[in-house]
């Protein structure tokens, strides 16, 4: 079928909170340089799936594979053993967890649905913070400004400036992040994610709150960064024209379950999807 | 931002103004006819009650004798009071505050810890200080400037231990407060002497802010002790007495000078407890003083409040009264209001006619006292009854 390299693979990811199954056996693949969309009505479990990938939540069952390596895996344990409502309970045996910062270090960066910029910092600092994880100098050296620390800081600054130029935020680099207009905040959040040198970028509703013109620009922007930074992108979005316009493959969730996947055209024609959005007879 | 600046600047101005006021006071006292005596006592914290009673004695003495003739010049005596909050960390700045107000001599404090903490400040300033009821030996041990008019813990601890042994007690329960040098020190000397007398002891400590003494009383009963020694602050004392009554302690309670206070008699009144204390002063020992100070308290409602709401005398009040006169005598003997001269005059000073007995100092600066009064609480009348005088031998 597709012989491109797989960078992210979710296998049977299930997330159950108490008795509520938020994500039910999600199977999803993102190939290298692919833009994949994840859609579904509100409460379908899209953001929860993101949180499972990035280590914010521990999935109840299933595994996450990044660049060919299983980095997160879980199976129902403890109280969940009896309460588990999903399928494939016996399929996974290991319990591998990973903290969000480790996931980021593996090359998975994300943005947030409700913009989470560092409020007390400037645009420049927001980007530079994201580069901190690659710093090798110790606290001691950094505090007393060793030669290495100064070199690293200078390199960071140079890189951040370049990045900001690319996302058209250079002019605003010394402004407080929260003082930016809304659309630019979205851009900054993406720039900040890019600063972690990701191979996969997870975008959570990047076009939320944008007018058609802005979302059009965003679409182009996403395509551009994919090429420029050699990325794979997985995005959640409600703006159908954005999704339909740039995603090569689309997954549809409803009530946690995966109801369809395919290309834009396939999805638009899929009766299950239309039912999910329009509501069935029940 | 500018608002901040305004704030900072105005505060700076305020500081200057205040410092200026203080400075003005200095020049007044230097050439004028006022001599200042510093009163370094707690008015709050654990020892607030005791500190206030001690201050009361000083105030009464000041009222009785508001002037002093030094050389051939008559001075008005002004008391400069500062609250050391019964807290070692506040004591240093409080002492510094006194020193910076140009006092000639300092009296206090109730509670040994704060006195030890302040000793270095007084030493640095060459300021003579007279401890009134701080009984820990460390107060005067390494401080040339510190003198005191009361007996010491080694003495008092031995006296109490001897009294206990004499009354036939074999096993003593000793309770002290964590972090309180007074009770810990006194218990230590008591234990030493009591063991030397062939007795057995159980030692326990209670933490700061504790008000639940149920278990301590129960421990004393369970361990089969026959005397309960608790030389703690009056605050804790009232609670202990209460629990002793509630649990039917069934053994005498023994304590040191802090318990010679109306707080204790109030708490014990109408209860079936047996309380014995050693103290500096026997109420009724000097009827004139007794009546005078009681009349004063009747008149002055603040004084009455500070004494805990009635006119029963505490030993520390009498000691405070004495301390004031010792200070006056020292100034007379020095013939000057200069702290250095007073300091020089103190070692050879002998004062008689005081209500708690004559005062003279030994080489470490401690009063030569060989006897303590033993008193017992009459729980029916709520008054102290004299038992005997006891010495350390």
């Amino acid at each position, binding site marked *: 079928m597709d012989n491109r390299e797989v960078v992210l693979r979710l296998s049977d990811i299930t997330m159950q909170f108490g008795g509520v199954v938020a994500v039910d056996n999600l199977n999803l693949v993102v190939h290298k340089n692919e833009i994949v969309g994840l859609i579904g009505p509100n409460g379908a479990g899209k953001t929860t799936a993101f949180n499972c990938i990035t280590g914010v939540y521990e999935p109840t069952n299933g595994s996450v594979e990044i660049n060919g390596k299983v980095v997160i895996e879980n199976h129902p344990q403890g109280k969940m053993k009896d309460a588990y409502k999903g399928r494939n309970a016996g399929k996974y045996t290991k319990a591998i967890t990973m903290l969000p910062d480790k996931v980021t270090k593996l090359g998975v960066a994300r943005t947030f649905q409700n913009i989470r910029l560092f409020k007390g910092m400037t645009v420049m600092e927001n980007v530079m913070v994201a580069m901190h994880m690659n710093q090798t100098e110790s606290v001691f050296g950094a505090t007393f400004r060793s030669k290495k620390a100064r070199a690293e800081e200078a390199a960071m600054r140079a890189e951040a400036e370049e990045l900001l130029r690319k996302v058209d935020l250079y002019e605003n680099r010394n402004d407080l992040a929260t003082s930016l207009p809304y659309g630019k905040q979205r851009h900054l959040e993406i720039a900040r994610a890019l600063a972690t040198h990701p191979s996969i970028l997870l975008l959570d509703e990047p076009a939320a709150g944008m007018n058609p013109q802005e979302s059009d620009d965003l679409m182009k922007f996403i395509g551009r960064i994919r090429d420029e930074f050699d990325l794979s992108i997985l995005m959640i979005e409600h703006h159908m024209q954005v999704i339909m316009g740039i995603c090569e493959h689309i997954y549809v969730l409803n009530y946690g379950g995966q109801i369809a996947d395919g290309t834009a055209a396939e999805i638009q024609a899929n009766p299950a999807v239309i039912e999910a959005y329009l509501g069935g007879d029940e | 931002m500018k608002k901040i600046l305004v704030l900072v600047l105005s505060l700076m101005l305020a500081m200057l103004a205040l410092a200026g006021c203080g400075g003005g006071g200095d020049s007044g006292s230097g050439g004028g006819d006022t001599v200042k005596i510093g009163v370094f006592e707690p008015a*709050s914290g654990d020892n607030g*009650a005791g500190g206030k009673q001690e201050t009361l004695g000083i105030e009464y003495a000041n009222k009785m004798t508001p002037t002093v003739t030094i050389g051939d010049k008559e001075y008005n005596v002004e008391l400069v009071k500062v609250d050391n909050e019964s807290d070692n960390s506040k004591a240093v700045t409080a002492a510094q505050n006194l020193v910076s107000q140009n006092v000639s001599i300092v009296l206090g404090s109730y509670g040994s810890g704060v006195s030890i903490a302040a000793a270095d400040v007084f030493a640095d300033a060459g300021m003579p200080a007279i401890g009134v009821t701080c009984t820990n030996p460390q107060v005067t041990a390494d401080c040339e400037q510190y003198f005191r008019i009361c007996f010491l813990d080694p003495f008092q601890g031995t006296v109490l231990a001897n009294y206990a042994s004499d009354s036939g007690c074999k096993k003593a329960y000793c309770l002290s407060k964590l972090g309180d040098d007074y009770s810990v020190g006194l218990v230590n000397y008591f234990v030493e002497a009591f063991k030397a007398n062939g007795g057995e002891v159980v030692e326990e400590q209670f933490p700061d*802010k504790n008000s639940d003494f*149920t278990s301590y009383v*129960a421990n004393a009963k369970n361990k089969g002790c026959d005397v309960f020694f608790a030389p703690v602050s009056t605050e804790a004392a009232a*609670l202990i007495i209460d629990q002793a009554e509630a649990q039917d302690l069934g053994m005498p309670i023994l304590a040191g000078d802090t318990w010679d206070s109306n707080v204790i008699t109030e708490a014990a009144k109408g209860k079936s407890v047996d309380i014995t204390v050693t103290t500096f002063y026997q109420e009724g020992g000097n009827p004139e003083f007794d009546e005078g100070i009681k009349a004063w308290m009747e008149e002055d409602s603040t004084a009455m409040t500070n004494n805990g709401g009635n006119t029963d005398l505490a030993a520390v009040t009498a000691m405070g009264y004495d301390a004031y006169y010792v200070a006056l005598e020292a100034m007379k003997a020095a013939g000057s209001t200069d702290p250095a001269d007073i300091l020089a005059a103190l070692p050879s000073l002998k004062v008689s006619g005081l209500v708690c007995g004559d005062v003279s100092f030994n080489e470490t600066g401690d009063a030569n006292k060989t006897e303590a009064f033993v008193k017992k609480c009459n729980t029916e009348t709520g008054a102290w009854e004299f038992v005997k005088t006891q010495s350390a031998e």
Partner: protein
Amino acid sequence: MLHTWLPYILAGIAVGGQYALIAIGYTMVYGILRLINFAHGDVFMWSGLIMVYLITVLPLWVSVILVIIFAIVLGTTIEKVAYRPLRSAPRMSIMISAIGVSYLLQNFALYITGGLTKTYPEIGFLQKTVKIGSATTKMVTVITPVLTIVLVFLLVMLIKHTKIGMAMRAVSRDFETSSLMGIDINRVITVTFVIGCALAAIGSVLYFSNYTGINPMSGAMPGLKAFVAAVFGGIGSVPGAVVGAFVIGICENLIKGAGWTTFSDAFTFVLLIVILMVKPTGLFGEKNIDKV
């Protein structure tokens, strides 16, 4: 065996019941506002102090009622003045405000009392000595646990079966949504403070009848311990707080009985840290999931 330990257990149960009455105030306020109301222990101390002054001029039952009213007024005033304006401020500010109020209440008490310990008035039947088995104790020791359990039962009924109780549960579950659903948040919070403070006032009558000295710092330790009890039982849970309070009261006294008196207070904090490590949600607490 029992013969030696009975007095400690009795004392523990009594003090546990008193902690429980304070702990309810902490746990309910925390459940709804996510705020450690550091001033609660001081409201408790002030209730005791007011009683000392009231009893000199009024009969006992009037004084008790007035003390409860006073505690309620004080508590709700604190909420209105010091917490409500900061409700949308960062969590640290409101906690600092709570610490500030506590500092103010203590210092004001220090000023009023002049730092002297006040003796709590004698409430005849509470302080009567009774004999239980081998132990002698005060009547209040026996009354406290009974009264505590009755009050807690009533409170649980109130929370489960009344409209305001339902509103309280809703608010503690989801503050934002409840306010959007038309629940009058301010009213719920006020009622929470009213209940918490009234119970603290009753607790103060029992506590100070047992330990009869009140000084400005008297509320600090019981307050902290009651808070630990609330955490132990699972913050937000009323029965949890009560169980926690009894556990702390009994353990504390047993530890003293075992001769580890130096660490009787420290023990409470060890327990706190252990429970936070092992089961941060406490015995009966529910897990909260942060929304991302």
